[in-house]
């Protein structure tokens, strides 16, 4: 067989056409003014904060947008030796669970506290997937204030999405499991009969932000992936994407991909909250941890709770409905008007857009096409606003601008696609590098989106940065979305694996920042408010050292009479009351992390000396021109020796007996 010249020519042209169709590198995709749009000159500040989930790092990172500069990594679910989070005595209870101390978490999604459907800049909520938990961070201090464990759940993925006035943070289980009060020692093949899903509603105290599990919904065994609140007309409803309605328990890759349509579960939480108030539901025995950091003692406490209120959705009438959704839906996103619910079926070749008003009508007219374990399934056509045809491959997540446009990430075809909510026509598509998971539009899940920027959070990085061995950073890509066409501006690297992220107007947060902790309000039991209060007390083999830190000395800095076998607690109070003046502390051979102590704060690090000798300690954070002088010595004597406990600094330092 031989090819003629024409077909060779055609193949060549086709090859050229294919290669020109999809830009292969940034040089083709980025236009001339991109650098100017992301350049934030030295001394200037970014317009947006972006809070980015850290995935398997367990933490949350904060970036400035549009510069893509990393501002901070906030310790949430994993220990952090840099600050001492999870190492200091005060912070250890934050990582307590019903399984004991857990040093790591898998952090996927974030929500800002909302007032009337918009970000109010008070708190950030973060989920932990593996050992189901939800954290609350205070946006005045950028610190984790509270962590609550979610019982009856496994894989807290559909979380921590929030209602439009921060009434509840939601936690939907990814893996269905037997409930904690049921016998779990059963065959895995009894999945369909014995396993259940759990949707938890965590109430938020409007003043303090404190979390409490108000109630849980027990549901048929499916996998909950993501969810979002209704708003405007749909306020009071929550929409959960469900996959594995096949109820598969092995080889889910194949067995959970059988049905053409799975569901979005619409839940009228407002009505259910009323039922709960009226006394509906039953108390179920379980065990879960609730950990709270006290702002004045700088100390966390962990409480194990032993029951939770459960309502079975099969027993509830007129509050839960399944919307059929093609196919294995991932994102479940509600547009700013609250009318449209977008299901992103990751195996579907179209994007269904559901109408809330049509859903209300269908419920009223009982347009059901059957039921799923006793819960009505609405007729697909009756609730459908329309479908976006051929949007791309592998739609995952959708966010919105303020002009009626939606933006959907396409994992398989590596692109972001802009389309119009009313006409359902695709307006623009831009390639991403590569395989975008979540995307974020500034304010894109709020009632009033800011628009302006979009970030694609990519799973594959490959050739985007200088290579760093087999493991590469995950890549983020910033787009300008002010025009008809989206414009790629910038790549920037991230920590861990970003899943969902949020962008908030910097003005909402930056002026409320705490600069110090007021030392007058410090009620830590071992605080030393001034060097006069620095002291050492021995209780058996426990030694408590109330030590002060200020530029640039530690008091006491000469300590004698510590013995092998002692448990020594350095309670470190930073006496500074000025912004950006932390002191760090460590001691030679410490089998622990350092602690970073902020102005006005007290933190405790435990040390167990193993051998006799002279052991130096020092400040780890360069604090002044005399930082290298900020140090001291502990004299460790053998166990049982009679070296007296003596300590001091300068004139008060212990002198050798004459």
């Amino acid at each position, binding site marked *: 067989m031989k090819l003629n010249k024409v077909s060779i020519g055609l193949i060549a042209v086709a090859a050229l056409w294919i290669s020109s169709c999809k830009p292969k590198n940034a040089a083709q995709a980025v236009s001339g003014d991109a650098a100017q749009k992301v350049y934030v000159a030295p001394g200037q500040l970014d317009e947006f904060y972006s809070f980015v989930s850290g995935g398997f790092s367990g933490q949350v990172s904060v970036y400035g947008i549009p510069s893509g500069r990393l501002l901070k990594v906030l310790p949430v679910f994993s220990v952090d030796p840099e600050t001492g989070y999870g190492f200091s005595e005060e912070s250890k209870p934050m990582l307590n669970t019903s399984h004991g101390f857990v040093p790591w978490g898998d952090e996927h999604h974030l929500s800002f506290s909302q007032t009337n459907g918009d970000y109010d800049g008070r708190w950030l909520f973060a989920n932990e997937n593996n050992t189901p938990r939800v954290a609350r961070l205070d946006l005045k201090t950028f610190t984790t204030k509270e962590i609550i464990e979610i019982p009856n759940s496994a894989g807290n993925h559909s979380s921590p999405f929030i209602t439009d006035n921060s009434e509840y943070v939601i936690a939907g289980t990814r893996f269905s499991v037997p409930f904690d009060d049921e016998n779990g020692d059963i065959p895995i093949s009894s999945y369909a009969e014995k396993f259940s899903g759990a949707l938890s509603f965590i109430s938020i105290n409007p003043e303090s932000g404190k979390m409490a599990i108000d109630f849980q919904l027990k549901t048929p065994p499916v996998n909950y992936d993501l969810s979002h609140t209704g708003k405007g007309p749909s306020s009071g409803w929550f929409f959960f994407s469900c996959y594995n309605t096949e109820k598969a328990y092995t080889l889910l890759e194949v067995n959970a991909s059988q049905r053409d349509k799975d569901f979005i579960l619409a839940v009228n939480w407002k009505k259910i909250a009323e039922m709960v108030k009226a006394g509906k539901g039953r108390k179920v025995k379980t065990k879960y941890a609730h950990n709270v950091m006290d702002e004045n003692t700088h100390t966390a406490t962990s409480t194990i709770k032993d029951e939770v209120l459960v309502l079975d959705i099969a027993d509830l009438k007129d509050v839960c409905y399944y919307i059929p959704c093609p196919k294995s839906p991932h994102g479940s996103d509600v547009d700013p008007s609250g009318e449209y619910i977008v299901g992103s079926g990751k195996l579907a070749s179209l994007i269904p857009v559901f109408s809330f008003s049509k859903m209300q009508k269908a419920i009223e007219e009982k347009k059901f096409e059957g039921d799923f374990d006793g819960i009505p399934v609405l007729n697909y056509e009756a609730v459908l606003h329309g479908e976006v045809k051929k949007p791309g491959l592998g739609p995952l997540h959708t966010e919105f601008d303020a002009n009626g446009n939606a933006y959907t990430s396409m994992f398989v075809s590596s692109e972001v696609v802009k389309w119009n909510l009313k006409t359902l026509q695709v307006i623009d598509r831009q390639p991403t590098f590569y395989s975008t998971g979540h995307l974020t539009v500034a304010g894109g899940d709020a009632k009033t989106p800011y628009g302006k920027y979009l970030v694609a959070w990519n799973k594959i990085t490959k050739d985007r940065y200088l290579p760093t061995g087999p493991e590469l950073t995950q890549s983020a890509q910033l787009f300008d979305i002010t025009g008809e066409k989206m414009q790629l501006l910038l790549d920037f690297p991230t920590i861990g694996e970003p899943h969902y992220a949020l962008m908030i107007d910097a003005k909402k947060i930056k002026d409320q920042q705490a600069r110090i902790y007021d030392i007058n309000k410090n009620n830590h039991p071992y605080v030393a408010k001034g060097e006069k209060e620095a002291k050492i007390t021995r209780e058996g083999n426990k030694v408590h050292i109330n030590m002060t830190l*200020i*530029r640039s000395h530690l008091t006491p800095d000469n300590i004698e009479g510590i013995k092998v076998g002692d448990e020594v607690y350095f309670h470190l109070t930073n006496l500074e009351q000025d912004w950006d003046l932390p002191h760090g502390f460590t001691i030679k051979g410490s089998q622990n992390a350092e602690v970073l102590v902020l102005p006005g704060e007290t933190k405790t690090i435990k040390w167990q000396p193993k051998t006799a000798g002279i052991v130096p300690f020092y400040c780890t954070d360069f604090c002044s021109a*005399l930082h290298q002088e900020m140090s001291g010595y502990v004299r460790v004597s053998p166990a049982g020796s009679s070296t007296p406990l003596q300590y001091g600094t300068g004139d008060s330092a212990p002198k050798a007996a004459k």
Partner: protein
Amino acid sequence: MRKNTIIFLFGMSLFFAACNNGGTQTANSTTSAATEQAATPAASDTKSYDPKRGEGKFDETNVQLGALDAAMAGKGKAIAEAKCFSCHKTSDERLVGPGWKGVTERRTAPWLMNFITNPDAMIDKDPEVQAQLEICLVRMPNQNLAETEAREILEFMRQNDGAK
């Protein structure tokens, strides 16, 4: 030949200007006010700086001294124990910073009030404080004192200096 010299001199002056600018920023970089101050050139402000009064909220109209108020001085001492005595002794001996003995004779009352509440700006501008910094090498921290607290500390300083 002459042209070359001029160009050379011009180049040198640019170099000095750039160097000077860099120096100012380095000095500021350890303070909390670094970004705010970097925006306004320090040099022009120095000219209007009053070394008797210092810089801040206080002058002779709002700092008035009367007979010593012992209760007030007592409060001042308690605050100083938490926030000042890590670095200052009440004698004339230097610890991290200079001893307090005689300070109310060396400085005016408004100067002290300003320095306690607004140290960063004054460390950058006051010639005597700058000379002091060369000896101590640690910038006095802003301890975020309320105005009443600062005034109570001043009263204690007066008591320490034997005011009646």
